[in-house]
């Protein structure tokens, strides 16, 4: 025990010492994302320079929106019944008769692949006494109610009534299943309960459609789909995925390679349902003390993208290369190896950065190969709970691989132990999984009853609330 200090013991009063001071926070961001993009050797698509074009002030947000049953009822009545919402990936129902069951609060929709390859959606209830026609994803030749065998075709037309003689009131010509509007964008299927709503393209807006022109998902397949029921409001879950501010504290393992403190957070007056962030990778956070040098940041990135290059010439920074340029080089190499992607099509930012779009209220697609993600948070009737889904869409060549099965972790499954298919992302999601229920509990305790938000880094949370309030106040 010779190395042990014979003085005070841990926990004694005299054992207390002042912790080391935290790195002073700068008055302004030390750099802006547009500057990073502008000096990238392989510049990004022009849309990425369309930075924040609207401002939402610095006011607080009432915490009760995250747990009040009255507010949840308003969301259901005024918002969820009016919006285009992401129902499923179209290739999850590739064949005629494939049926996806989309559930939102107490409503349920059958999304059905038709014999001609098109898609129709129906209210999931038998017109007799209301039993759900399907309970889970399935394949059927017709839509037959398991309760009494009332039957409809895949196109919703009425086919058969049991004890027809006993339903004199029933006009079979008018006994089709009520349709729900369904439209497709980039392989994803969206439904809308509102018969008066504009079409999906107008809802998404031309700016969103323009941004995504270069990001085609026709060569992507759903490789991973993890689902977890989590003890937080759907918006609390969303919040953690539309800001990068929490990453330094909550996902500190990334601080040596990601610099979300200078990220770009975009909302646009002409695209009310859309927001975006771009968070730079391949650069250490300015908040780290000491801030790692370029060689260290590059080594960490290389270990992630191309571990076999570590220790070789390829795994070292080349003359004149900084960590970001070197990281983009090894990232592109890994995309060539893994997916056969033409490296000339992948700019530095698309190779590296965390680029996330949000289409209100439940669709969060990430366009690039660095993070080929789609997130979705779906409210449950109890506003303290929601369903959180993470999907990964990988490129393929040749024949389209089938969509993966959904890995449903229930309420207790662990992202790190039970969803290893997430790879390095599992730890990040586990860390969010730990934070979010504690956020939900703590919000109810706030003495002020208000959440305070940054102006910029949490702008997308402000935007989410603004769009939601716009629907509620209509």
């Amino acid at each position, binding site marked *: *025990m*010779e190395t042990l*200090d014979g003085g005070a013991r841990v926990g004694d009063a005299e054992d207390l010492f002042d*912790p080391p001071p935290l790195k002073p926070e700068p008055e302004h961001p030390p750099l802006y994302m547009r500057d990073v993009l502008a000096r990238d050797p392989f510049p990004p698509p022009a849309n990425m320079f369309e930075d924040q074009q609207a401002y939402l002030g610095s006011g607080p947000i009432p915490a009760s929106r995250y747990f009040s049953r009255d507010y949840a009822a308003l969301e259901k009545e005024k918002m969820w019944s009016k919006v285009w919402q992401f129902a499923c990936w179209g290739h999850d129902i590739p064949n005629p008769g494939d049926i996806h069951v989309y559930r939102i609060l107490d409503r349920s929709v059958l999304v059905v692949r038709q014999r001609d390859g098109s898609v129709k959606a129906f209210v999931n209830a038998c017109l007799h006494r209301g039993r759900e026609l399907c309970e889970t994803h399935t394949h059927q030749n017709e839509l037959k109610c398991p309760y009494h065998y009332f039957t409809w075709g895949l196109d919703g037309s009425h086919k058969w009534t049991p004890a027809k003689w006993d339903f004199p009131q029933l006009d079979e010509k008018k006994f089709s299943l009520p349709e729900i509007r369904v439209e497709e964008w980039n392989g994803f299927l969206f439904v809308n309960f509102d018969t008066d709503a504009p079409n999906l393209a107008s809802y998404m807006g031309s700016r969103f459609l323009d941004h995504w022109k270069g990001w085609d998902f026709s060569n992507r397949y759903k490789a991973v789909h993890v689902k977890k029921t989590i003890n937080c409001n759907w918006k609390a879950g969303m919040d953690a995925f539309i800001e990068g501010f929490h990453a330094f504290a909550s996902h500190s393992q990334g601080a040596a390679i990601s610099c979300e403190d200078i990220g770009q957070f975009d909302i646009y007056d002409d695209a009310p349902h859309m927001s975006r962030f771009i968070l730079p990778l391949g650069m250490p956070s300015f908040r780290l003390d000491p801030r790692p040098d370029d060689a260290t940041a590059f080594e960490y990135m290389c270990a992630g993208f191309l571990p076999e290059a570590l220790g070789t010439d390829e795994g070292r920074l080349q003359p004149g290369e900084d960590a970001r340029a070197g990281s983009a080089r090894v990232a592109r190499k890994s995309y060539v190896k893994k997916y056969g992607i033409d490296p000339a099509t992948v700019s530095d930012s698309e190779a590296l950065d965390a680029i996330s779009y949000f289409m209100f209220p439940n669709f969060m697609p990430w366009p690039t190969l660095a993070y080929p993600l789609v997130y979705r948070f779906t409210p449950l009737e109890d506003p303290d709970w929601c369903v959180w889904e993470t999907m990964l869409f990988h490129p393929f060549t040749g024949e389209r691989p089938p969509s993966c099965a959904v890995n449903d972790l229930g309420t207790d499954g662990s992202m790190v132990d039970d969803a290893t298919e997430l790879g390095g992302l599992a730890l990040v999601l586990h860390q969010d999984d730990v934070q979010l229920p504690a956020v939900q509990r703590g919000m109810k305790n706030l003495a002020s009853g208000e959440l305070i938000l940054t102006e910029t880094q949490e702008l997308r949370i402000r935007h989410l609330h603004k769009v939601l309030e716009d629907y509620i106040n209509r």
Partner: protein
Amino acid sequence: MRIEPLGETIRLRPGEPLMRGAQRQGLSWPTICHGQAFCGQCWVRVTDSAEPLPEPDAKERNALRAVPSHLQGPTVRLACQLKPTGTITVERAQVSRPAPTPKPEQGQAE
């Protein structure tokens, strides 16, 4: 405890984790969460230990996942959690002894 490549030797109190003892004695140690076993930034590689090291508990094992994968290994531990019971040598490049902050000059009393 000997810290390489800094080349300093410090004494820990009984039950004191490495990082805490080092900080108490003025060393700068990489960390973000400051001892909450969350960030994984304080990792060290143990290169020698007179006594067998205590096994990492669940909290430390969880946080060790945050260490970059190419650096992980059986001798890598979290300095905020590891409480050695005997002489130990660890390696961590970013540990340093900051230069003392110059004291502001005392103004003349009026």
